[in-house]
């Protein structure tokens, strides 16, 4: 028991530095080899994940409001159309105020990839990669990989069946997963840095026989774990987006790479 604790501490210590001054906002995740639910022809042994830090909660309206106030070029009436579609932040009463449809502690939604990316840059961070997100989101409250558990899958799926026109709960209400990250499931969809690397054919029902003509290289991705509907739906949604798109339940959180020397 004590040995296990010591081991835990050993793992946790280098990661503590990673979260740095923003310790309360980020949590460090150890690296490792991760088996994605996606079938990567070039990574059959699993995807290598370097240690990184991830925001505990999705970015909220209140936090995003601070950002657009200090970066007015990202206010909805000033942002270039190439970076954000017309519905960008359309749930805010004005470009610089929140209201009944956008409470400060709800996750921000109606944000484009460009806006999410700019926000993360402004706090010295970046968007997580899809692999980092999937890796963090495979955990439940007690296990690093709960994906094979039918009960866990059922719980996630029940969220997807809820209508999206209900008001969003506050960020940070759900129990943290084993890493200390909250709300990866059950609150909003989230942008990833490489959302557009998810090359899924428009009609991918013929597993493994995707539309090869459309993509240069290995062709469209297919699923290794077809029972994992939660991941399948995320991938389908992200793969359908353009970088300027915004939707009613799409938000984001930021990540940071481990500084060199911490990457063992």
């Amino acid at each position: 028991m004590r040995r296990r604790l010591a081991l835990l501490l050993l793992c946790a210590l280098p990661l503590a530095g990673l979260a740095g001054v923003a310790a309360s906002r980020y949590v460090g995740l150890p690296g490792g080899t991760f088996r994605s639910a996606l079938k990567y022809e070039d990574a059959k042994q699993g995807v290598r994940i370097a240690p990184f830090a991830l925001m505990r909660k999705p970015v909220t309206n209140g936090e995003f409001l601070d950002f657009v106030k200090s970066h007015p070029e990202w206010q909805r009436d000033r942002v270039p159309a190439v970076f954000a579609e017309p519905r960008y932040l359309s749930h805010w009463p004005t470009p610089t105020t929140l209201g009944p449809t956008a409470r400060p502690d709800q996750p921000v939604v109606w944000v484009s990839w460009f806006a999410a990316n700019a926000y993360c840059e402004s706090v010295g961070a970046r968007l997580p990669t899809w692999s980092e997100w999937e890796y963090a989101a495979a955990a439940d409250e007690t296990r690093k990989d709960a994906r094979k558990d039918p009960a866990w899958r059922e719980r996630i799926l029940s969220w997807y069946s809820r209508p999206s026109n209900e008001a969003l709960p506050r960020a940070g209400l759900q129990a943290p997963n084993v890493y200390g990250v909250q709300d990866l499931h059950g609150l909003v969809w989230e942008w990833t840095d490489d959302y557009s690397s998810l090359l899924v054919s428009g009609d991918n029902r013929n597993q493994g026989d995707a539309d090869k003509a459309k993509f240069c290289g290995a062709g469209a991705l297919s699923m290794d774990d077809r029972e994992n509907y939660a991941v399948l739906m995320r991938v389908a949604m992200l793969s359908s987006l353009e970088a300027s798109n915004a939707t009613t339940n799409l938000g984001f959180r930021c990540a940071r790479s481990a500084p060199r020397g911490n990457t063992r």
Partner: protein
Amino acid sequence: MRAQRAKGQHTMRRWNLAVGAMVALATTILVGTLAFAAPAAAPLPRDSVYQLSVPLTDQQARTADWRTRRGKPQLMAMFYTSCQYVCPLIVDSGKAVEHQLTPAQQQRLGILLISLDPARDDSAALKAVAVKRKLDPARWTLAAPRANDVRAVAGVLGVRYRALSDGEFNHTTALILLDRDGRILARTEKVGSQPDPEFIAAVRKAVGP
């Protein structure tokens, strides 16, 4: 101070309130003169891809922001030089479009192939392709952005890609036509030596008769 002058009318009104009449008069004259003397480019349209600043290093080792291409319609695509299969087809597609144009029209169209692979596509690698494919540097630019800019460039151009572990890239192929101000006029995913007739019509319209 300089920034305030450049912002023009709106800022100027506030300025007038804030300072004495003499200073205001002087400023007004100065701003007026500047505006008159420099009929600089009209503001960039909000839907222009040039809203994104992208320094590119080309096959002749020159680095310039792609915004400098404003003023001329552009044919753009993303590719990478070590690609064995589809990417040579992208060059073929660009050539096929050119062949559908008169020499005068060709002069009025810029062609820009942007690398997905800045780590390997330095100016020498880009030049090797340009030479091998006999691409006239007056009309064809092969260039690489900074590594951190690739995803954003792909974002504004609507190109999707994934870096594979063997150094290849899995990506959608598209030719994109931009107007002189960087607005996307047309795109086609039909690549190869058989040009897409609708796309050719859009190119002809963009460059004029």
